[in-house]
């Protein structure tokens, strides 16, 4: 039997808290991180976004280190990975492979006296120096699927016995750069975003970081553990920004991930969708889920809590999906009122306990990229 890739431990640093448990508590209580943001350095008018408060981040950071020369994103990422290491003494960051997943990294540095910080390999070196790692981390930057793709890569490396442990660190920040770009795309919602809802009108942006330890082994004392058993990415080969009208790439990636996990489509108990709340994205997902025969499974989008955290989003959502499996719970798809896509979907409208064995996590991004991950709960 081939080697398993277990999702062993994780930390989320977001507006909903600086640990996975705080984040889960907020989600269970339908509490969102999205608020009205008045900050002319980001956007001239008030807009809705999920932002990490600088003073809170600073207070948490001071418990880790006194370095002040690090950027907000670097502190968010390091906070996540340092907490992960502290809570898991058996994790050795110096022997694990480290993959950084980010869409725009320190892009806010372009407007500062240190634009060189915007090079993603400089971000990798900052993390390497701080963590005293022997090797520079790998960096993947593949738009909004970056975090999910990095997890898939971790699994592939472990299964091919290239290594035993991989730590994926993902993160992206709110910046005037991305905010202005999404506004120019007429893609920002005037209120908190409403994934899959009839009244949706675009994304809310967010910022967050997370760290996930993927390993060939586990030493859990719980009765079960979660493994990544199928994964695939596929390009739509259709348009660089518009989601495919047929959901082609997402459909292909779901099919391949299910095949690899050796599962039938009706064996999926829950789908953690991308659900950005733009009219075309959510419609595309509904089409792909129906084509793939998984649309009867309960589905949610977590964008109503976190906003769209770009390269971090699929990483955070996979972490939440893992805990949903372990805790047998379904998180409500916040912001949803009435189905607003042309194909049926079983949107989760309130928090509920339900026995779960297998989860499908998907994400899609500019450039026509799509990723699908199958997570399974395994009895120890």
């Amino acid at each position, binding site marked *: 039997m081939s080697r398993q890739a277990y999702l062993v431990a994780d930390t989320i640093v977001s507006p909903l808290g600086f640990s996975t448990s705080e984040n889960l508590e907020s989600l269970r209580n339908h509490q969102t991180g999205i608020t009205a943001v008045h900050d002319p350095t980001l956007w001239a008018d008030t807009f809705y976004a999920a932002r990490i408060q600088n003073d809170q981040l600073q207070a948490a950071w001071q418990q880790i280190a006194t370095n002040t020369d690090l950027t907000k994103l670097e502190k968010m990422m390091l906070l996540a990975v340092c907490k992960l290491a502290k809570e898991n003494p058996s994790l050795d960051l110096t022997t694990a492979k480290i993959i950084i997943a980010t869409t725009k990294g320190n892009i806010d540095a372009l407007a500062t006296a240190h634009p060189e910080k915007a*090079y993603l390999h400089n971000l990798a070196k900052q993390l390497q120096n701080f963590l005293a790692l022997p090797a*520079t981390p*790998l960096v993947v930057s593949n738009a909004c699927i970056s975090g999910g793709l990095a997890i898939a890569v971790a699994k*592939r490396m472990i299964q091919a016995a290239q290594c035993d442990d991989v730590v994926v660190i993902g993160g992206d920040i709110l910046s005037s750069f991305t905010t202005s*770009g999404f506004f*120019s795309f007429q893609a920002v919602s005037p209120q908190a975003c409403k994934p899959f809802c009839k009244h949706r009108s675009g994304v809310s942006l967010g910022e967050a970081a997370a760290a996930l330890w993927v390993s060939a082994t586990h030493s859990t004392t719980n009765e079960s553990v979660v493994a990544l058993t199928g994964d695939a990415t596929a390009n*739509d080969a259709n348009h660089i*920004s518009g989601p495919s009208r047929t959901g082609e790439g997402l459909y292909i990636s779901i099919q391949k991930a299910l095949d690899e996990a050796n599962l039938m489509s009706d064996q999926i108990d829950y789908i953690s969708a991308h659900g950005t709340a733009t009219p075309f994205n959510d419609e595309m997902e509904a089409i792909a889920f129906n084509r793939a025969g998984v649309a009867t499974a309960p589905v949610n989008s977590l964008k109503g809590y976190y906003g769209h955290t770009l390269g971090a989003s699929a990483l955070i959502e996979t972490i939440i999906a893992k805990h949903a499996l372990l805790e047998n719970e379904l998180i409500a798809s916040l912001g949803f009122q009435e189905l607003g896509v042309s194909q049926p979907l079983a949107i989760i409208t309130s928090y509920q306990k339900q026995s779960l064995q297998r989860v499908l996590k998907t994400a899609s991004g*500019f450039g026509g990229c799509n990723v699908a991950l199958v997570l399974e709960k395994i009895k120890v």
Partner: protein
Amino acid sequence: MSTPEYYIADYCTIRHHKVYRNGSCTYTAPSSMPLKEFTKGVYSTLEIQYPKFYKMDTLSKLGFLATEILVEKQQLPVETALVIANSAASLDTDRKHQASIVDPTNFYPSPATFVYTLPNIMLGEISIRHQLKSENAFWISEQFDAQWITSYAQLLLQSHKAEKIICGWVDLDTDKYDVFLALISKQGKHPFTAATLNKLYVEH
């Protein structure tokens, strides 16, 4: 388990305003020529009608051109994965978008520019052109990391996630550019190893 052998079937380098295919120079332009004109010149040698080319940012144009030269008229299988890396990600276009939002009295961010502020858009452009519905990954490293690119490409091939692979390096930073792509398949002259890939990368 026996490991199927893979080879570097073809490779293409674009460097110092010269284009090379499998080691031979196929196009050259004066080094003083602006990059935009150079890419247009290379495009005209392809003798194709592809108006989308003009809409691409320079990074995507370079990746697109190298792929066209690399594959010539071959029909690539749908399962051809793209594994490309660079040092500056999309910073060349990022700076253009940034310049459009600096002055609040002249604040007109362009959606056509913003969409290219992602390095993997190039992978999308190549996928559209050749109808590749396969694996994409865009990696960032300071220098060309033949070891990792080879290792990751092998992961995709050995796990049957791809049939062929186009891999390499497409970097652009202001006017400095460096392009090297290789087509990996079951047939070819050079065995697909990191050492060989690196040797071909530094050839010109």
